């Protein structure tokens, strides 16, 4: 059984604010839920499937269902960090195919900027079984990702200049987004001249820290046909986990090497068919490694692929993150997967900013990397197609 073409994203909403000191996280969940449902032409009363991550306030989907006034007959709180929401889309599509629900709502919200919850490093270990063996002072995720960058540079000759091009492309796209947290274009020299945070990653290799959230509505095609709104058909989904592997960890790749091929196989398309890609960009290195693992270029050739405007839209080898991505636009709740799907939907609807819209965008990819690249993380990949009734 395949989910290919059997579920349609008909609602997508990104909270427009980046600092939200006057709302609770639960309120933001409701604002984005209402926003995505309004985009679809639906209401909370139509929802029969609900998806959120483990950071949703209170008792997760139980508290949120009560707070939102939902009567869901299918719930899922899969937690794979910032890739959770791409996994949720795949799970929602499977649930729709299986007849478990027909209108699935996925929400994300958080206030790391004004609420004081900065991204965690090893502090998040808690009662994890590895706690005690990884108390090395990585108090924010950048140190973890820097380890992967160091190894990639060592094995393949990847340079800081090449990584900087990823930020440059994102910043050029962000200038067209009035909601972007960092709307000003930067140069390679700007990135290389910014303070070193965790060698070899500079401050401008890092994503932004923003309040906010987003939501998606995934429905059965029969429901989508009643709404009169274009959407994104879920053509393929893949997810995978990567971890320490009992001491054998290899830092040159991510779990995308498994999630990507699964998504492409289900969709029946190849990387070369993709016209636009949303690639989770917690750090520049996150993008580079994912692009290789997803098959957009050979392993080790990511530097050359992204250099010299390779990711620019339009005109680059692979237009990416046309909203400015997590590097410049928004990284709500320290989790960038939701906004990756939202911008892919905009592209497939032809509703991205005209300056960065990919002409005739029919096939897009969205990819998330959640957790910590050099220790343990979850990857999730979606292949999406333009859809209209």
């Amino acid at each position, binding site marked *: 059984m395949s989910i290919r073409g059997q579920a349609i994203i008909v609602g997508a909403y990104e909270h427009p604010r980046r600092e939200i000191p006057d709302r609770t996280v639960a309120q933001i969940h409701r604002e984005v839920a209402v926003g995505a449902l309004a985009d679809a032409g639906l209401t909370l009363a139509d929802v029969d499937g609900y998806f959120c991550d483990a950071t949703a306030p209170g008792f997760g989907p139980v508290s949120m269902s009560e707070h939102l006034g939902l009567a869901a007959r299918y719930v899922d709180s899969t937690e794979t960090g910032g890739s959770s929401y791409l996994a949720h889309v795949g799970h929602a599509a499977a649930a729709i195919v299986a007849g478990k629900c027909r209108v699935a709502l996925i929400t994300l919200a958080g206030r790391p900027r004004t609420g004081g919850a*900065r991204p965690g*490093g090893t*502090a998040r270990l808690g*009662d994890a*079984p*590895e*706690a*005690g*063996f*990884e*108390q*090395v*002072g*990585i*108090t*924010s995720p950048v*140190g973890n990702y*820097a*380890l*992967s*960058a*160091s*190894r990639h540079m*060592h094995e393949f000759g990847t340079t800081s200049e090449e990584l900087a091009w990823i930020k440059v492309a994102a910043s050029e796209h962000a200038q067209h987004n009035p909601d972007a947290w960092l709307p000003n274009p930067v140069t390679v020299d700007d990135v290389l001249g910014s*303070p*070193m*945070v*965790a*060698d*070899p*990653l500079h401050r401008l290799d890092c994503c932004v820290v923003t309040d906010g959230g987003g939501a998606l509505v995934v429905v059965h095609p029969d429901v989508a046909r009643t709404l009169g709104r274009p959407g994104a058909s879920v053509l393929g989904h893949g997810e995978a986990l990567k971890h*320490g592997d*009992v*001491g*054998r*960890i290899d*830092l040159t790749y991510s779990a995308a090497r498994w999630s990507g091929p699964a998504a492409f196989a289900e969709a029946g398309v190849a990387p070369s068919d993709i016209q636009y890609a949303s690639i989770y960009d917690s750090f520049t290195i996150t993008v580079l490694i994912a692009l290789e693992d997803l098959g957009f270029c050979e392993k080790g050739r990511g530097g050359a692929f992204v250099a010299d405007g390779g990711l620019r839209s339009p005109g680059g080898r692979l237009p990416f993150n046309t909203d400015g991505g997590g590097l410049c636009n928004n990284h709500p709740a320290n989790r960038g997967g939701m906004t990756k799907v939202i911008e892919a939907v905009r592209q497939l609807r032809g509703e991205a900013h005209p300056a960065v819209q990919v002409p005739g965008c029919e096939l897009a990819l969205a990819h998330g990397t959640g957790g910590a690249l*050099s*220790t343990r993380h979850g990857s999730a990949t979606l292949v999406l197609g333009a859809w209209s009734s």
Partner: protein
Amino acid sequence: MSELPAPGPPVNDETAPYWAALGQGRLDVPVCDACGHHIWYPRSWCPVCQGESVSWTTVSGRGEVYARTTLHKAMGPWGAAAPFVVAYVELDEGPRVLTNVVTDDPAAVEIGTRVEAVFVPVTDPEDGSPATHLLRFTPSG
């Protein structure tokens, strides 16, 4: 660079032999009795072959740097210690261990640099941790 924080780690029955060995100046790792894999992080069974029996085995404490970064900023008590080196050290016996490389010259710690274990006294025993020493590494002389 000032001294790195040395918080007391969580210890349980499964991992107590590891911490006890560090206190005696040894690095002990569980080795699978069935397949011989050196199991990192330590566990009481073997996730490679699902063998139920492991034996604590003293390893050399020598290895080389597999990946490294210098953290120029950190939060909490680690902030005062910056810059400091975080690395994966590949032990000569195989496992890649996330650790600190203690040095006055972070830039000299490169991928491939030979290192050896140092047993650092716990200075901040949180939650009554019984561990007395932590595992870190330093460039081999």
